[in-house]
């Protein structure tokens, strides 16, 4: 045991020496990719399960091949059975990768409001001021941010801004975050319906 301990530390010293001899060739150290079994399996996208040392070794071999070659014959995470493939093909190819269903769902949910701007590459929708018929003395505008590719709540953010008319002046009303959450739910439901209708 002691002999192997000494060998282990000698090898660590040798490693440091070898590394100091090698010149950097453009590595992006900010990625901080851990060289452990679990981290490699997770990064590679292999679907092979772990659970025992033997299974993890099998998954690791597949993972290292995928990492070495940039993926598998059928893509990084194998072949999808279902609609995920179509989702990938409809994602914006330029700019930020935003979820197309969240984008369409957002536009359809607020289609009764005038739009000030809509940027499909950045995933930003900004409406103009809108007043409902039942409350002409109040108006609201909405900012919608679609922040990612996956269709999940975290990738959708709605901020609303409302004002009331007081003595001929529009006065800001305190933001109601519950209403923002309800509007997010409405967009998510619409997005899911669109997605299911296309599957």
């Amino acid at each position: 045991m002691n002999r192997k301990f000494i060998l282990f530390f000698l090898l660590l010293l040798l490693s440091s020496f070898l590394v100091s001899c090698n010149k950097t060739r453009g590595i992006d150290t900010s990625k901080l990719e851990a060289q452990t079994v679990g981290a490699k399996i997770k990064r590679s996208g292999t679907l092979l399960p772990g659970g025992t040392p033997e299974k993890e070794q099998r998954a690791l071999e597949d993972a290292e091949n995928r990492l070495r070659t940039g993926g598998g014959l059928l893509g990084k995470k194998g072949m999808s059975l279902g609609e995920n493939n179509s989702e990938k093909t409809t994602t914006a190819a330029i700019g930020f990768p935003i979820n197309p269903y969240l984008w369409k769902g957002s536009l359809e949910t607020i289609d009764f409001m005038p739009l000030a701007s809509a940027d499909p590459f950045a995933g930003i929708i900004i409406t103009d001021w809108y007043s409902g018929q039942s409350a002409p003395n109040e108006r609201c505008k909405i900012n919608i941010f679609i922040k990612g590719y996956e269709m999940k709540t975290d990738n959708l953010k709605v901020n609303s801004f409302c004002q009331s008319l007081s003595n001929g002046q529009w006065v800001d009303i305190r933001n109601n975050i519950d209403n923002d959450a309800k509007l997010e739910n409405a967009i998510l439901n619409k997005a899911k319906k669109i997605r299911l209708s296309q599957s």
Partner: protein
Amino acid sequence: MKKELLLATALATTVGAAGVAEAASASYSGHTRVGVAATNPDSSNSDSYGGSQMSSLSFSVSETTDAGVKIATGFALADEGTDEVDSSGLTLTFTDGSSLQLIEAGSASGAHAVTVPGGGGEVGITNTSANNAAGGLDTGTGADAVGFDYATAADAFGIEGFSANVSASFNSDVTATSGAAGTVSIENSYAVGVTYVTTAGDSTVTVGTGYNQADHNSETATKDNAVFHVGGTVVTGDLTVGAGYMDGDWLADNEQMSGSYVAAGAKYVSGDITFNVGMTSGDAADESIGVSGTSVEDSVDVLGASVDYVIASGVTGTVGYRTQDVKEEGTDSQTHSGSSWYVGATVSF
């Protein structure tokens, strides 16, 4: 009415809660490793070579709820020496990046073992099942299927580059065995593993360590599983070097072992070609269950080198060579010592 969403000062007419999860997705992938493995034993036995093919296929289904929690499960079919159907349990991945694996979760320790570079390819010269030398940094990290493994997100506890796993399994109703010949099974196990990855100048440094403890159903055994491993890798440009060490006690089948394992190696990537070289040295004093301090060590020392060539996405060609020295109870085993080479390809899909 939907178009009256902005009624009055509220944006709030309820338009329905998002209570339905998105449609599930399913996918499959796997790999096959096919080639020729040859052996040249130190004994008087003739050289030999033969075809080698190992294949695995995995199916996975997953669904992400509105809350962002991803639920995944699946199974794998493997033909790698033995025919197997492997279940992958149930994995919940939370929005913060942490995950919880339930059933078939395994040990938290093994996931944090560093991957030490070494010679690739299939092993042409095999070891004997009677040799119980430690065979990897994850030696002795078993767990019962009924358990969990919780993995933190990256940068856990506000520490950049830090991650950890905690696992436990429980199976206290295994029928007890006694005597030296009783095959043992793990009852309860607990494990922890941590990884810290950081930069040092132009290099990325990974340090991984883990500890696994497990008790068994044997009433005779004088040891339980208690193993730890520690290791580190340094990546600078195209060069990776690493070393790892494991030590502890563990039980398998009807024997109890005390042993250690050390591995070291280097890998250099030049375009589509990867050069690997590495050594491993494992040993163990193996004893019949309940017998202490009467055995000399089994050992396996391996020196290997290989070259991998990336042929296409998912396809690697490998040429490998290794030498192996095996000792059984302190005596050279020439039948299982010698050299071997391998030429083949790995295809992931």
